[in-house]
């Protein structure tokens, strides 16, 4: 069943269009920056973008920062929201279950397909932006961010005063960031998957998950909500930047992984409980 789900996702033109668009946006940004040599001042605009002018090999990180806040969650929410609700509205859910595909099996297959999609999307962005970065900005070894100037409130005070990073170092750190972002997206995916078992409308499930993210973003930015902010899904989203500090700051990264794990477990559990006991009337 997992194979079938992967095949279905791969045969769907929409999946590839979404990934292509995700890859395209950082390329457009890179071309503008390369042509004008006007990068946002440190601390403003997408994280690390100002550092890119000095070395193209940091561009994958900047590219991930560009797509992370909006575009990546949208595409993940669309795919995850479509998982069960899409089958229900196309009328295929009843035929799959009568095949029979066990309900738990179907959900697991959908989840695996979702994870694969997230990984392909994030890696595709990283690879295309690496190539773009090297072509447009050269591959001088970059400097890491200094740990002294960090702020964890989401706005990064960039500084290039740190020690230099070797290419292997950059690769490892980028891989870490890719993994972190992929896991962060699974939290969104789990929420959308849960909503997808509640409704027969794929659009409703995707928008519901995005609404949850926007609400979380608003609350994270709100000082008076500071007491709950450590438990919000988007709170540690930007902590992957800590992979590019010298030394790497693991505190927020660990917390980010942990909070996403909690969201994934809770919402997948809810999705399973709801779907396994639900009357399929679509």
């Amino acid at each position, binding site marked *: 069943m997992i194979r079938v789900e992967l095949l279905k996702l791969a045969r769907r033109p929409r999946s590839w269009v979404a990934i292509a668009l995700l890859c395209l946006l950082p390329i457009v940004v890179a071309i503008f920056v390369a042509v004008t040599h006007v990068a946002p001042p440190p601390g403003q605009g997408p994280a690390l973008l100002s550092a890119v002018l000095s070395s193209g090999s940091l561009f994958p990180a900047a590219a991930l920062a560009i797509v992370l806040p909006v575009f990546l969650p949208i595409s993940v929410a669309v795919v995850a929201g479509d998982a069960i609700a899409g089958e229900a509205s196309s009328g295929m859910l009843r035929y799959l*279950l009568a095949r029979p595909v066990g309900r738990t099996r179907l959900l697991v297959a959908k989840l695996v397909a979702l994870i694969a999609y997230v990984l392909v999307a994030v890696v595709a962005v990283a690879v295309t932006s690496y190539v773009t970065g090297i072509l447009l900005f050269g591959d001088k070894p970059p400097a890491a961010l200094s740990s002294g100037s960090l702020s964890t409130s989401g706005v990064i005070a960039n500084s290039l005063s740190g020690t230099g990073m070797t290419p292997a170092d950059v690769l490892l750190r980028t891989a870490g960031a890719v993994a972190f972002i992929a896991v962060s997206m699974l939290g969104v995916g789990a929420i959308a998957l849960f909503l997808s078992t509640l409704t027969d409308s794929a659009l409703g499930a995707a928008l519901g998950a995005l609404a949850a993210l926007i609400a979380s973003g608003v609350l994270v930015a709100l000082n008076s909500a500071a007491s709950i902010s450590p438990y919000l899904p988007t709170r540690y989203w930007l902590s992957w930047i800590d992979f590019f500090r010298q030394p790497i700051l693991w505190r927020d990264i660990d917390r980010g992984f942990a909070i996403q794990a909690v969201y994934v477990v809770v919402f997948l559990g809810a999705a399973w409980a709801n779907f396994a006991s639900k009357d399929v009337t679509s």
Partner: protein
Amino acid sequence: MIVTTGLTKRFGQVLAVDQVDLQVSEGDRYGFLGPNGSGKTTVVRMLLGLVYPTGGAIEVLGVPVPRQVSAVLPRIGALIEAPSAYGHLSGRANLMLIDAAGPRPRGGRSGRRRRVAEALERVGLGGVDDRAVRKYSLGMRQRLGLAAALLRSPRLLVLDEPTNGLDPQGIREIRSLLVELNAAGTTIFLSSHQLSEVEQLCTRIGVVDRGRLVLQDDLAALRGPTGRVLVRSPDAGQAAALLGGRVVYRDDDRLIVADADVAQVNAQLVDAGMRVTEIGPERRSLEDLVLSVTGSGSDRFGRPAARSAGAPGSQALVADGHRAASDADAGGSSQ
């Protein structure tokens, strides 16, 4: 094959299925009839483990459902309400995906292409090109849905309106396919509100109305002679006078006579010099039977005044049913 006892389903406040005891035996061609919204589809979905019953028990092929439904589903082919497919893929690709989903089939993965080709051939889509299902006509979709149901040579076929959207030739083709499958040992459970379809195909019927099973019997028994004789004569007035109190109904040149002996009635009329254009035992049509045990469907929301206006209409239908069986058949197949 299918046994349900006290099967009940409640959706919130609505009692959709109420104490249904179905009995479908091996080799039956069972017609499951009822007005729209009477609970047919809910019953079908419960048989397939899609909807969980509120009360009662289901046994399909001797296996309790929904508890062990996954053990029995591989031997069931189903067409549930409308056929569905992934619109952006071809019919063949759809069947490949459906075949790959679920437990490993008997022929293994290598037999997939062959199985799919066979199923397409059976339903008359053997030569179909690679166009996407999105561009299929309704009839082609219906055939594709049937092909999906036939993929694994099931022992039980559960079909909901399988000839929906087909033209008369297509309907006949599918009907003979079903008869052929049935002869080869497949039990057929056909849920429909098209009486003619059921009348021409099924050997046994169950009628459900407002969630209750109101009738279940062999079609032949139900449609047996009613013990009355149907007479058509240009001299109907004189004939009625001659037969006296035995005439229970007269409508222009048609008479219904309460007498089981057709030959005797005929002889009596001819002896008296009356012309007889048609005479034979009266049989109840399926339409007649079903309408007599069911109310109007749940898609009808007439106001009380409109309802009384509708009543003579249904009366007329019942009266219309007093035709000879051959007559009703001819009327049915023209649909």
